[in-house]
C-alpha cells in the first residue's frame, strides 16, 4: 500500500510577510508533521517567536520534541518522535550552512538527544520548504518517507526490497528512482536490527553521518529505512547584497588558516594528536603509538590510497576524502575515506597500524550503518576483555587480539547482525559492562552511556569538564574546547583571556561553558564547527543571519540562545534522573594517567573544575539549575512540563 497526502503549496520566495517591517523575517516558519503509522500529513506555521528563540536545528528539534512527547517514552517505541530539522542558516549561501539535526530520545543513553549531519541533505530539506519534519508513529512495514518540494507532497512508500540492504546500495537505488538531485538519509542493517549506536548515513559513498546516540536505531524501530528529499528551491537572500562580501572575507581567512585541513581532512590530525598525547590508544591505556605515523591522513596520501576530495553543499573546505580500498571483497572499489575519529576507533584504539584495514573497517561500518566512534570503543573494549580473560573464544567466536584488523571487521558484522558477543556489544559499552561483570566496568569508557570520542581529557583537561557535563554524554562536539587549548581557535574571540596550560585546571570551567554555549548556537544554525579555524565570532555570525534571513541578533543574544538550549537540555537530563553523580568520567580517565608521551602523568582535577563550572552556570552543588538561573533564561515553564518543579523548589 502506498499512501500519499498533499501538503499546501510552498510559500514563494520573497513573498511579503503578513506584518512587514524594516527587517522582514525571511525564514520559512513551517513544520511538516508526518504520522508514518497512518500516512497522514499536516503542515503548521511556527510562531515567529519560536524561530527567534530556538533558531532552528538541534534547538528547534528539541523544542518541538518536548511539545509533542513525554520524556519517559521507550526510545524504541512508536511514541518516540523523530524530528529532522535543518539549521536556521542551512541552505542559505553561507559557508558550511549545510547541517541538519536528528532529534529523538536515544536508545543508547536513554536521554533526549540530537545528532547532526552535513552533506547535501540539510540544504535539500530546507529547499523542500520546511524548518523541521516531525516523524511520528511507526510504519506498518518497512518503508521510506518521500518529501517532494516541487509537488508539495509527503508520502510513505513501501521499501520491502531495500530492507537488509547496506546504506550505499540503498542510497543508489533511491537516487536511481527519484532522480539525481534527490537526497537520501538512510539506515543500514545495524539500524534495522536495533543496534543502539546505529547511525544515519547521508550521501552514499560521499558519506556524511548523523553518527552518535543511535538515531539509526530510532529509524529502525519505526521500520523507516530512509528519508528521501527531492525538488524545491534553495534559499537565496533577497535583501541588500551584503552576504557575498562577508563570505569572500571569510574565504580569504579559510585559505590562510585551513590549507592543511583542506588537503588531508580531519585524518591529517592523527599524527599531531598523538604527539600531543591526545589520541586515544589501546582502549585509553596507551601513551604513545608509533603506528600513528602509518595511519594518519598524510600517510594514506603517500601510500596512494586517497583518490580525491569531496565537499558538503557549497563548502570550500572539502575535508571529505575518497579512498580506494585495497583489501577484502571490495578491494579496488572507491569508498569514503576514514576521518580522524574513525582512525582512532579502528586504528589506535585497537593498536591497528594498517591503513588498509582502517579504511576497510570504515567502509564496512558506513555500509552497516554503525557509528564508528561507539563501534571502535566497543571493539577495543572487547579486545581488552579478551586479553583479561573476561571473555574467551567460546564467547567471542575467534581470538580478539590487539592490532588484528580481521578481528575488527569480524566484530563489526557480529555487532550489526547481533550475533554472539556482538549482541552484547550492540547495546553500547555501559550495557556490555553490566552484562560482563564488575571488572569490565573498569575499562568501559563512556559518559552517561555515550562512548567518549578520541580526544583525551588527560591531554587537554578542559575536555574533562566538557565530557562530564555535555548534554548527550561523552561528546567532544558540544564543547570542542581543545581547539582553544591548542591554539586552533583563539579564546579571545569569546572574551576569554587566559593562556591555558594543557594539564592545569585554571580557567577550564569557564572555557567549557562558553564553548558549549557557542557550539549549541552552531547546532541551531546548521553551521560546521570547522569554521572555528577561520576565527569566526558570534557577532560575525549575527551579521550572516541578518544578511541571509533578515533576523536581527547581537552576538551576545546568540550566545544567550545557546546557553538557554544547553540549560533546557540539562533540565531534560535532570528529569531523567541525571545529577552530579553522572557528571563524571570513567575510572580509567580520572585515575590512570597515560604512561608515556606528551600527556604522561596527568589526570584531570575534575571535582575542582566541576564546582567552578556549576557556579558559573548558576547551578547548585548537585548540578540542578537554580530558580534564579531558570528565570533569567526564561525556562521556568519547563519545571512544570518536565515534572521537576518540586525538586528544584526544594533547593
Amino acid at each position: 500500500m502506498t499512501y500519499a497526502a498533499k501538503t499546501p503549496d510552498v510559500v514563494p520566495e520573497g513573498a511579503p510577510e503578513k506584518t512587514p517591517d524594516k527587517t522582514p523575517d525571511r525564514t520559512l516558519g513551517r513544520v511538516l508533521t508526518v504520522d508514518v503509522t497512518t500516512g497522514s500529513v499536516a503542515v503548521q506555521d511556527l510562531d515567529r517567536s519560536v524561530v527567534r528563540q530556538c533558531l532552528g536545528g538541534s534547538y528547534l528539534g528539541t523544542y518541538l520534541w518536548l511539545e509533542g512527547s513525554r520524556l519517559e517514552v521507550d526510545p524504541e517505541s512508536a511514541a518516540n518522535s523523530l524530528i529532522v530539522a535543518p539549521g536556521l542558516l542551512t541552505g542559505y549561501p553561507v559557508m558550511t550552512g549545510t547541517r541538519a539535526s536528528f532529534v529523538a530520545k536515544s536508545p543508547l543513553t536513554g536521554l533526549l538527544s540530537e545528532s547532526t549531519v552535513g552533506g547535501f541533505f540539510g540544504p535539500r530539506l530546507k529547499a523542500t520548504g520546511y524548518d523541521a519534519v516531525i516523524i511520528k508513529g511507526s510504519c506498518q512495514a518497512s518503508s521510506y518517507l518521500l518529501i517532494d518540494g516541487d509537488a508539495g507532497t509527503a508520502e510513505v512508500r513501501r521499501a520491502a526490497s531495500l530492507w537488509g540492504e547496506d546504506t550505499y546500495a540503498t542510497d543508489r537505488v533511491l537516487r536511481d528512482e527519484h532522480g539525481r538531485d534527490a537526497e537520501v538519509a538512510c539506515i543500514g542493517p545495524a539500524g534495522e536490527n536495533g543496534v543502539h549506536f546505529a547511525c544515519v548515513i547521508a550521501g552514499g559513498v560521499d558519506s556524511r553521518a548523523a553518527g552518535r546516540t543511535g538515531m539509526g536505531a530510532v529509524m529502525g524501530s519505526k521500520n523507516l529505512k530512509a528519508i528521501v528529499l527531492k525538488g524545491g528551491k534553495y534559499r537565496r537572500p533577497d535583501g541588500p547584497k551584503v552576504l557575498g562580501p562577508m563570505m569572500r572575507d571569510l574565504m580569504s581567512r579559510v585559505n590562510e588558516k585551513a590549507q592543511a585541513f583542506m588537503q588531508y581532512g580531519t585524518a591529517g590530525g592523527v599524527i599531531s594528536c598523538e604527539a600531543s598525547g591526545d589520541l586515544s590508544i589501546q582502549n585509553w591505556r596507551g601513551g604513545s603509538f608509533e603506528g600513528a605515523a602509518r595511519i594518519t591522513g598524510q600517510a594514506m596520501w603517500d601510500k596512494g590510497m586517497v583518490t580525491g576530495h569531496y565537499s558538503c553543499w557549497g563548502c570550500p573546505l572539502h575535508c571529505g576524502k575518497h579512498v580506494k580500498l585495497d583489501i577484502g571483497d571490495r578491494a579496488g572499489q572507491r569508498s569514503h575515506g576514514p576521518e580522524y575519529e574513525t582512525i582512532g576507533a579502528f586504528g589506535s584504539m585497537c593498536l591497528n597500524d594498517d591503513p588498509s584495514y582502517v579504511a576497510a573497517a570504515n567502509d564496512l561500518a558506513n555500509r552497516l550503518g554503525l557509528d564508528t566512534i561507539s563501534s571502535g570503543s566497543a571493539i577495543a573494549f572487547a579486545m581488552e576483555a579478551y586479553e583479561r580473560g573476561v571473555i574467551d573464544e567460546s564467547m567471542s567466536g575467534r581470538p580478539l587480539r590487539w592490532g588484528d584488523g580481521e578481528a575488527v571487521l569480524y566484530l563489526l558484522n557480529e555487532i550489526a547482525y547481533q550475533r554472539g558477543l556482538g549482541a552484547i556489544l550492540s547495546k553500547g559499552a555501559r550495557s556490555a559492562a553490566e552484562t560482563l561483570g564488575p571488572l569490565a566496568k573498569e575499562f568501559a569508557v563512556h559518559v552517561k552511556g555515550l562512548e567518549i570520542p578520541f580526544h583525551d581529557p588527560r591531554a587537554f583537561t578542559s575536555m574533562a569538564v566538557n565530557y562530564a557535563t555535555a548534554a548527550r554524554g561523552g561528546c567532544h562536539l558540544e564543547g570542542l574546547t581543545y581547539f582553544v587549548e591548542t591554539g586552533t581557535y583563539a579564546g579571545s574571540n569569546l572574551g576569554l583571556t587566559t593562556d591555558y596550560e594543557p594539564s592545569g585546571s585554571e580557567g577550564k570551567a569557564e572555557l567549557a561553558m562558553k564553548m558549549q554555549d557557542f557550539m549549541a548556537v552552531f547546532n541551531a544554525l546548521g553551521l560546521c564547527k570547522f569554521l572555528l579555524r577561520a576565527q569566526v565570532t558570534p557577532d560575525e555570525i549575527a551579521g550572516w543571519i541578518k544578511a541571509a534571513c533578515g533576523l536581527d541578533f547581537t552576538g551576545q543574544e546568540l550566545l544567550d540562545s545557546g546557553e538557554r538550549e544547553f540549560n533546557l537540555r540539562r533540565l531534560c537530563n535532570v528529569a531523567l534522573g541525571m545529577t552530579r553523580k553522572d557528571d563524571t568520567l570513567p575510572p580509567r580517565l580520572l585515575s590512570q594517567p597515560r604512561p608515556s608521551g606528551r600527556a604522561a602523568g596527568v589526570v584531570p582535577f575534575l571535582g575542582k573544575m566541576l564546582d567552578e563550572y556549576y557556579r558559573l552556570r548558576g547551578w547548585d552543588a548537585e548540578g540542578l539549575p537554580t530558580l534564579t538561573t531558570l528565570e533569567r533564561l526564561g525556562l521556568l515553564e519547563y519545571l512544570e512540563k518536565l515534572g521537576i518543579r518540586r525538586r528544584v523548589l526544594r533547593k
Partner: protein
Amino acid sequence: MKGTAGPATHVAGTGNGSAQRAKDVQVELMGHLIYYFPESMRSGARVRTTVPSGTAVGHLSDLLKIPPQEIQVFLVNGLSVRELSTVLQPRDQVVILPVISGG
C-alpha cells in the same frame, strides 16, 4: 637516515664544524610539522635538526620554514615558552608541537 635517530642534520644552521655544533640548539619537531621536511629527515613521527644558539624562539618558524599559525607551543628544556623573544642558549633542547584539531 630514515628509521634511525641519526646525527643532527643542518637545514638552517650556519656551520658544520664540530666546534660550531657544540653551540647548536637541538630542535625536535612533532606531529604534522614533520611533513615540512623531506622524508629523508623523518624518523618515525619525528624530525630532529639543529639551529644556531642565539636564535630567538619567535624566529624558529622562519628559520625552519613552518607556518607560525601551525605551531601550538615551543617547549624549551621541557618547559613551555610563550615569550617569543627568548634567546636560545647552547645545548638547549627545543620541542615544537603542532596545533591540533582532528575532528
